């Protein structure tokens, strides 16, 4: 029973990692760049929700939708203004650029007087509710995380499988040049991918906020989503979620059964093993270059 309990809380945490990892993978698939600012986008999303609820006094659903829409717009603008000018440069430049964006986001949030430096509670309607189910104590916040992730996965799957936009994005991610020749506006799609990634990050932030609290440094959790993305295979959307779940469950179990210190490093130990054993991840594609 205890094991099941641990697994469930691990799954909830893993969903958060998975959602952030989903953002990495979306951007990576579309533009071959890795965004180190994903955690900060999540933090901005959570602050956006907080602003909607406390500052403007919107009801919960409206402020959630507003935060997600605002972050999606922010992602598109970010791609247009900062990322697009240096596309095609070495991966290193873009990594540094996104690290810089993360610094700026964190710095700007702490600049807001009285709000940025404090730790806030997101007043969600399901705060502190608990379900009892056959001996299990289920935290509603965690159940909401799992449920929302599942719904989001279905939505994204439908988008990529059936919609014109999703199929165009898949084509662009497989071969940009060929997609461009087929009349797909690759640059615009890159912008949309960033917008989508920012929106997913905002959702992750809004889901995580009731569990941890909203503060300027909550974006550091994004660093744990990298292992999730790698374990699942960096170019695979379902891989990101599965990787997140694996990391979440391993972390939760090692926090209980192993000595102190393993909880924080479990994710990194798993990813190092994964990189040595199977560098392409569980669902990664293996292609080789023709010289």
């Amino acid at each position: 029973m205890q094991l099941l309990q641990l697994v469930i809380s691990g799954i909830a945490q893993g969903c958060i990692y998975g959602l952030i990892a989903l953002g990495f993978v979306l951007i990576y698939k579309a533009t071959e760049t890795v965004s180190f600012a994903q955690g900060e986008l999540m933090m901005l999303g959570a602050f956006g929700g907080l602003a909607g609820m406390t500052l403007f006094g919107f009801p919960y659903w409206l402020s959630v939708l507003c935060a997600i829409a605002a972050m999606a717009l922010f992602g598109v603008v970010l791609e247009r203004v900062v990322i697009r000018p240096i596309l095609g440069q070495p991966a290193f430049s873009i990594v540094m650029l996104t690290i810089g964006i993360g610094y700026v986001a964190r710095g700007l949030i702490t600049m807001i007087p009285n709000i940025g430096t404090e730790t806030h509670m997101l007043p969600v309607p399901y705060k502190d509710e608990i379900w009892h189910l056959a001996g299990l104590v289920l935290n509603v916040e965690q159940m909401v995380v799992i449920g929302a992730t599942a719904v989001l996965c279905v939505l994204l799957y439908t988008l990529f499988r059936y919609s014109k936009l999703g199929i165009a994005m898949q084509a662009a991610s497989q071969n940009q040049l060929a997609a461009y020749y087929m009349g797909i506006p690759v640059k615009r799609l890159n912008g949309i991918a960033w917008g989508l990634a920012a929106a997913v990050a905002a959702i992750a932030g809004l889901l995580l906020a009731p569990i941890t609290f909203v503060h300027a440094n909550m974006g550091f959790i994004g660093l744990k989503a990298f292992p999730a993305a790698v374990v699942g295979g960096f170019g695979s959307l379902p891989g990101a979620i599965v990787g997140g779940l694996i990391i979440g469950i391993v972390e939760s179990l090692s926090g209980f059964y192993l000595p102190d210190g393993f909880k924080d490093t479990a994710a990194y130990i798993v990813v190092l093993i994964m990189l040595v054993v199977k560098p392409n991840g569980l669902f990664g594609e293996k292609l080789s270059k023709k010289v």
Partner: protein
Amino acid sequence: MRFIFKTDYGQDIRLAKHGGHLFWYGALMLVLLAAPWLVQEYWLAQLTFVLIYAIAGLGLMLLAGFTGLFSLGHAAFLGVGAYTQAVLTNMGLPFPLALACAAGLSAAVGLVVGLPALRVKGIYLGIATLSFGFIVEEVLARWESVTGGNAGIHIKKPDMFGWTLDSAEAFYFLCLLITVLATLGILNLLRSPTGRAFVAIRDSEISAQSMGIHLAYYKTLSFALSAALAGIAGALYAHQLQFISPDQFNILQSIDLLLMIVIGGVGSVHGAFLGAIFLITMPQAIAMVKDYLPPTVGQAPGLQGLVYGVVLVAFVLFEPLGLYGRWLKVRTYLQMFPFYRKGMFKRQKSFQKSERLK
């Protein structure tokens, strides 16, 4: 503009290309030697920090700037060096031996981390080194019997066979000596076949491999050398601060090191020094202008992060060659005075290279 008439192959690899180099670097050396008498104690300490960070920067530059492998966990090597030095010095080992052990142990750790680098590259390597950095930080915090845990550890003054370097000046000269040796070592390495192999790997692994460069050997060597330099820098860092704790070697320190070489200029030895100067003077500059800003901006704790972020984004977008690249442009402009053309340093447009195909 100076034109060098080459009559000898030796001139191609000479360290000082012409008399101007000798004169200016000699002058710089004299100023640095005279610094303890020229500046106050506080600024001397800052100068020592610049030298220490420059050593670490040289190591990272060798890895990221010249071999093209980037490490997001370089602070871990700094930490390994610092803790080795602290533990060994407190056990009574003389400074040179402890320093050699610190460099050696860091290099050994670098070898281990370099192993995944043989199979993975690009962002995967970044994540491997990032993970490694977190693990080392955790080990430093948990291995309390040796490292003192989160409470940190104090370190004695450097001691060389009965002669204790207890003044700031003496330690400054020690750092200066090690920096000069490290710089000359790196310059010498870069003009040797080994250094050329590193650069070839950076530019294209496939062509390097087909020219007969053993990728695994050179990549591991690059990691080990880079880690050794970081270890030396860490050892000096420990002596300079006299107190170290695991949180000095966290991810933010790693990012600071990367930021240093990007702002200094990736792929130039000068860049490591310019970046170190930037990294050390920036907090001072921010502290100075803080009082003139409105209090909501000036007193915000995130100001430094914001400035770093903006500077970093601006450099990546507008000056990818960093401070050294900017200096090259200014120098070329002055040398060619009325004839400088706008497009001389134009960034080459390149097609997006796919990492998924390897």
